[in-house]
């Protein structure tokens, strides 16, 4: 009988817990209206990254872009941006968006040790600054290598490459500025008999920010032109190479463009 005396309390507790959880989870849940970019849904997060790159393309402020990217705690944002550029290029997104992503990926990839040469380091982003998101550098930042407007790229070297590990054959392009630094975000047009395509340097940061490649079809002659270059390079065909076992395989091309 004494046990039954506690039954109403137990029933009350259970009903109360259910009611409390219903109120806390359904009727009036914790409202997250003060969220940070890191909590964004994956697609919004990618759009946010693209926006950071677009803003960087507008103002060229690399320390600020670094602070914005730091909000996502990505250990290698250059690779993330490079991969995103490739995805967006494949998805047919605007060229300006792809170039902006490649440009920022290149800027980050080429300067892995930041803040040398007089730049003021951005603050650690444990909390987002309430004022201007980043302090201005005390000295003008050294911009990542970009093509000098109007200065044409010229073909420096062009050579067939016989490497059995390079399959399928590729047009491998390297673009450098006049100081020898790799230049990301450069558009390259490739034309063949019944088609054409465009690709961009900097989309494979692991191979260098001035690097780009295009897969060749054996037997097809390609004409390649780097934007801001004076002349197209014609007659690029995957030439036959001999493997050690005597078999043939199609070879690649490596072309280097520089600003004189």
């Amino acid at each position, binding site marked *: 009988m004494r046990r039954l*005396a*506690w039954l*109403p*309390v*137990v*029933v*009350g*507790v*259970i*009903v*109360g*817990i*259910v*009611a*409390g*959880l*219903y*109120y*806390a*989870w359904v009727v009036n*849940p*914790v409202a*997250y*209206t*003060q*969220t*940070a*970019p890191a*909590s*964004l*849904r*994956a697609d*919004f997060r990618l*759009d*946010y990254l693209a*926006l*950071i790159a*677009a*803003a*960087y*393309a*507008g*103002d060229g402020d690399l320390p600020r872009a670094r602070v*914005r990217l730091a909000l996502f705690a990505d250990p290698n944002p250059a690779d993330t941006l490079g991969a995103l550029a490739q995805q967006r290029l494949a998805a047919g997104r*605007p060229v*300006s968006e792809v170039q*902006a992503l490649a440009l920022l990926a290149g800027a980050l990839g080429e300067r892995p040790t930041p803040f040398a040469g007089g730049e003021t380091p951005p603050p650690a982003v444990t909390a*987002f*600054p*309430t*004022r*201007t*998101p980043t302090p*201005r550098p005390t000295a003008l930042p050294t911009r990542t290598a970009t093509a000098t407007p109007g200065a044409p790229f010229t073909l420096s070297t062009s050579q067939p490459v016989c490497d059995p590990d390079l399959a399928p054959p590729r047009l491998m392009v390297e673009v450098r500025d006049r100081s020898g630094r790799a230049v990301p975000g450069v558009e390259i047009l490739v034309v063949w008999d019944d088609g054409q395509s465009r690709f961009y340097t900097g989309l494979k940061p692991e191979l260098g920010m001035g690097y780009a490649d295009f897969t060749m079809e054996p037997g097809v002659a390609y004409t390649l032109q780097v934007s801001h270059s004076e002349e197209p390079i014609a007659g690029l065909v995957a030439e036959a190479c001999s493997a050690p076992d005597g078999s043939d395989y199609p070879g690649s091309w490596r072309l280097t463009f520089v600003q004189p």
Partner: protein
Amino acid sequence: MALRVSIGLVIGLAVGLIYGWVLRPVKYVDTSPDTLRQDFRADYVLMTAQAFSADEDLEVARIRLAALGPRPPVEIVVEAIEYAVAEDFSQRDLETLNRLAVALRSAPSAGVDGP
């Protein structure tokens, strides 16, 4: 009897609320930009304005601002400008934001006003 049930209810309610609000609250891991904190919202608008200053594509700017909610884009930019002024953003940032606001006011809206 009724008193015991009431005591149980109160205890249970308290436990439920503590568990639901404190120990294991609803987690919003897939949020959208319209839930961003005000400083992040202002920076989002500033980034949109900076991108606009490079590409001058007002339609893209409108699409980006639409992620911050259903309000007219110019209102969102004005709100960001007010925040920027209050928080002492740089003159350059204010000018960038203002250019976007002017462009949005000057251009016809993208089919949201109706005939």
